[in-house]
Structures are given as structure tokens and as C-alpha cells.
């Protein structure tokens, strides 16, 4: 997994609430057995509209997606973060995320950032007002700042997820450090609840 430390990037504002994973990557593109190659299909149906945010030249090369509440609701398809990553996004900022999508992001070196509705609103205004609007996302410091440092917003992130992302760690390897504990648990459970095996 790629490390995520500090990201300075162009912000693309997607001004809709409840963006579901069917919109992020539609079912026609789930029939692959690979993790890559989904970028062209990102927001496929919406991208057919010429004025859709990602079709606007000013947002070309954006690496930070600004979104509204409940982003990523619906299916558990990890193809959603894969498609966002493949397109070039490394970070999504929103007031709230659906649980499974939120979790899937961390497994792929992508950072979902939760800011308050007011803070997100402010970023939407800035992104609309200033072509080329960029922010700096600093995972170590847990901040989102404008490039001139005029505004800084702090965000929360679980210590474990932060550690994995900062170091680009494979969490299977980390879990297997507890292999003895897992084996002991399993033996106990098998003795108590044999029907579960």
C-alpha cells in the first residue's frame, strides 16, 4: 500500500449529498478480476454530462475530492475507492461517510477526511470562487490547510489507521503478529462452541 503523509492538491467539488457507490463505479465495471483500470469509469454516468465537475478543465488533475454528507453509501464494492484512486484522487473530504466506504479507503492508501458541515461549506465556496484552489492535507498533523496557511481545519483519525497509512503498512502482516492470540482464541471457541466450526 502507498504511504500517505502530506498531500497538496487541486480540489474538485462534487456538490451532492448521499453519493452512492453505484454512481462512483457502476456495475458494468465490476466484472473485472483486477484492482486497477477503473479510473475511466469513475462517475461514468454523470461524466456523460459535459458540465459535470470532472469534465471542467479547471478541475483537471485534481487529487482531492470535496463532497457532501453520507458519501459512499450503498454497496461494499471496493471498486469505488479503486476507481477514485485510479482516477488520481488520494483524499476525499466530506462532512460524513458511509461506514464501509470509509473503511475501504484506508485499505488502499486513500484518506477520507471528516470536517464539519460549516468547514466543508467554506471549502466549497473557496473552490467555486478561486480557480486552481488547492489545499494541503497533512495526516501527521491531522490538518487541512489552504496553501497560504490562512485557514487550517483539524480532523480526527484513529491512531491505528493513521499509523498504517503514514507507513504504508500491510495490515495482514500486522494482524499476523497476533497469530498466537488468534490461535488461542480459536481453540477456546472450538471447545465452547464446536457447532461454529
Amino acid at each position, binding site marked *: 500500500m502507498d504511504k500517505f503523509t502530506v498531500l497538496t492538491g487541486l480540489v474538485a467539488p462534487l456538490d*451532492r*449529498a*448521499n453519493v*452512492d457507490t*453505484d*454512481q462512483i463505479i*457502476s*456495475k458494468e465495471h*465490476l*466484472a*473485472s*478480476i*483486477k*484492482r486497477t483500470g477503473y479510473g475511466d469509469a469513475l462517475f461514468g*454516468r454523470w461524466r456523460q454530462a459535459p458540465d459535470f465537475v470532472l469534465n471542467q478543465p479547471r478541475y483537471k488533475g485534481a487529487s482531492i475530492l470535496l463532497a*457532501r*454528507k*453520507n458519501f459512499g*453509501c*450503498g*454497496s*461494499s*464494492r*471496493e471498486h469505488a*475507492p479503486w476507481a477514485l484512486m485510479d482516477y488520481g484522487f488520494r483524499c476525499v473530504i466530506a462532512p*460524513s461517510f*458511509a*461506514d*464501509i466506504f470509509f*473503511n*475501504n479507503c484506508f*485499505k*488502499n492508501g486513500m484518506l477520507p477526511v471528516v470536517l464539519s458541515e460549516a468547514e466543508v461549506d467554506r471549502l466549497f465556496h473557496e473552490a467555486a470562487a478561486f480557480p486552481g484552489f488547492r489545499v494541503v492535507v497533512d495526516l501527521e498533523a491531522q490538518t487541512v490547510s489552504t496553501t497560504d496557511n490562512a485557514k487550517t481545519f483539524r480532523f480526527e483519525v*484513529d*491512531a*491505528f*489507521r493513521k499509523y498504517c497509512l503514514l507507513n504504508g503498512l*500491510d*495490515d*495482514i502482516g500486522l*494482524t*499476523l503478529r*497476533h*497469530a498466537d*492470540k*488468534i490461535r488461542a*482464541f*480459536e481453540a477456546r*471457541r472450538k471447545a465452547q*462452541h*464446536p*457447532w*461454529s*466450526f
Partner: protein
Amino acid sequence: MGQTLYDKLWESHLVHVEDDGTALIYIDRHLIHEVTSPQAYEGLKLAGRKPWRVDSVVATADHNTPTEHWEEGMAGVRDRFARLQIETLDANMREFGAKVYFPFLDKRQGIVHVIGPEQGATLPGMTVVCGDSHTSTHGAFACLAHGIGTSEVEHVLATQCLITRKMKNMRVTVDGPLGRGVTAKDVILAIIGRIGTAGGTGHAIEFAGSTIRALSMEGRMTVCNMAIEAGARAGMVAVDETTLEYVKGRPFAPKGPEWDQAVAYWRSLKSDPDAKFDREVRLDGREIKPHVTWGTSPEMVVSVDDAVPDPEREKDAMRREGMERALVYMGLTPRTRMTDIKLDQVFIGSCTNSRIEDLRLAAAVVKGRRVASSIRRAMVVPGSGLVKAQAEREGLDRIFRDAGFQWREPGCSMCLGMNEDRLQAGERCASTSNRNFEGRQGTGGRTHLVSPSMAAAAAIAGHFVDVREWR
């Protein structure tokens, strides 16, 4: 202080906790299907890892399998990408193995969330995961069951554990008898209408109250299935006699003295009377009417005797915009009576509503009638080969066929339209599935979520009807 059902399930599977609350929980049952597993098995191979416990895995192909042309075998899978996924699952099962695998064409094959319970592979008190968000279905058996991403599928295969954090506790209590024609589907749509699609985010929802208690296991599965549409990864119902009766005698259920030992434990799988919930919601079951969604999110739902809402009456600008966009997509005008909405297709199936009880409900409405000539296609897709066989023993297939319904082979089918079963652009469908997102059932397709009896009645009438008045 007392514990909730979720607290008990959590605690009994806790292997390790980090300082920040990140936990490792042990996974008893891992359900695998063809769409979200290939990358996970590939990851295992690349890292030279082996599955931790193969006999936790129950696998089937369901998402993109065709529901016709089975007589042609694998050649019946017209889409070459779908065939590659199905064959990749076959190959991974040969290489890595499973407790049991129901491949494409097997008579026990079916939707993964139908066959788990049907086989007794889902048992009370288990942790159940699957690379599919509707894994919440299995919570009907007092399981901690939720959907995971493909990286997590790989993680569970390699370690038998899931890295997660404890969710908050939420209880949705529904009390009172349901009216005639009102089903479990209407109960969960009413709940989603009340709390919204993010209402349960970050929570595990326990469904409780006399209405839930009175539901069959099929009904409880329908309710828990759509917990994810209320934002909750996991939904659950406590164990009672209904649970035990359903489980007893299933192929993978314990037998003899082990059954008694299991039952003694399973009876403890309920919230203590003094358990504390972070959030409580109450609904009156007597007031729930048949529900129909009108928009592109399951929370955009009204009673069948109501009308399409008017965005102008919505004060919140963001919500109003969402409503307007949904109405344009759905091709609907505000204040249209729901019963005036005409349909092109009807789909009875999906992990929400494709079990034997669902088919019986629909057949009772259809019996002796004909699908309206304005309906281009009405189809019934049983949840599994065994459901299909049972329905055929009961003569339900004849009732559907005689009425003009297509009687298909089992699978996920038009719930997500990964196979050929899709809506055409602009087509409107009464569907017993779980998601009415834009393009969900086919590009440009318009989905209205309803119960099996409502879908059946809509097929006969050609438009929505209040099934409470169906005679």
C-alpha cells in the same frame, strides 16, 4: 449494567484491542461470491499466504450468473467477463477449498444471503462477513453480520479476523400488529423513511418489539437485509423460538447433544432488560401502510395511498435539490398519486425478498389473474435452487407462469443488473429489491422498491395499487 445483544456478540469475538480502540474480532463464517473475491485470492497468492481456516468459507456464484439458458451449461453465460469471474471462483475453490461450495448450476446454488441460512451455515451467535453490504441479512439470527470490502475479504481469509472498532448501539422498536397486506418490507421501508439512509451510520441496529417478534425468519431477514440502507452495517434480532425452529434440522446445524448445548447458549443472545442504547427509535406497527419509494434513495419513500412529494415544500436547500434531481431522473411530477404511476417491468427477487414466504405472498395476489398487457416483462427469480424447487412443489411456478410471469433460475439478477436482466433506459420497475439508486437496475432505469405482494399486484394492474384493498 446490562449488555445489548451487540455488546454480547462483540465481546464473545474479541481477540485483541489496541490502545485507540481498534480491535481484532474473530470471524466464524466467511461467505464468498465471484465478484468481490478474485482480487482477494490474488492478493493471497501474491503474498504467498494460505487461508487461515478454510472450513469457515461458504461460497457460491450469484451476482452475475444468468437466470436463463442453464441447459447450455457454462456456455449459457453469455458475458465473457462474467464467465471469467465464475471460472476464477471455481479455480480459487479448487486451489484453496471451502467448507462447502455451490457453484453455478448446482441445485443448491443461490444468493449467498439466502443459502447461508437455508443450509444452517449461518447460526446464532456467529460473526458473519461477506464482500457484500447486504450481509446484514444474517443478523436476523442474532449474528454480528456485516459487509466488508475486498481488502478485508483478503484479511479475513489470511487471519480469520477483522480489524474493526466497536459501533454504537441503536434499537429500533416496532410494536403492534401489522395490518392486512403490510409486510416486513414495509416495516423496514417505514424505518428508513423515518431515520434516513444515514440514520444508522456508525451504529449496529437491534430490531425489537412485538411486530418484529411476530415476523417469520424470512421477514426478519428482509428487515435486517436493509439495515445497510439505513446506514447501519449490521442489523440484528434476538434469538427466540422462531429462530430455533428455523435452524433446527438444517444441513450444517448442530445435532443431538450438541444441539441442546447450542440452544442453551443461543437463548442468552438477547439484550439484557437494563441494557443501554445510544439511540432509540420507536414506530407503531399498526400505523405502517404498504410503502413505495418514489426517488433515487431508499429514504425517498411514501405510503402507497400518498403522492409524490413536492420539493417546493422542502425547506432544506440541499434536500430540495436532491429531490428535484431525483424527480427528473424518475420522470415524475410532484403530487402524482402513487397509484397513478404506471410500470413497464416487475421484478420479484433479490436477497431482500426471494425466499419461499415472499414467493407465497406474491403468488397469493397473482393466483388466477393475468399480468397487465402494458407490462413489458414481469419476472420471478427465486433466491436459491432449493427455494425454486420448494416453490415448484407447491405449484407456485404454475401460478406465476399462468399469469404471464417469467419463472427464472436463481441469482441476484435484476437487483443490481450485473447479468442480462436489466431495465432499459426510461423503463419503470416495481422491484422487491433493496436499492433504487440511479442506474441500479440498468442505465436510465427507474426503480420503485416495494414488497412482494405490492409488486405482484402492480404487475396485474399495470400500476401501483394499495394491496390492502386487493380482493
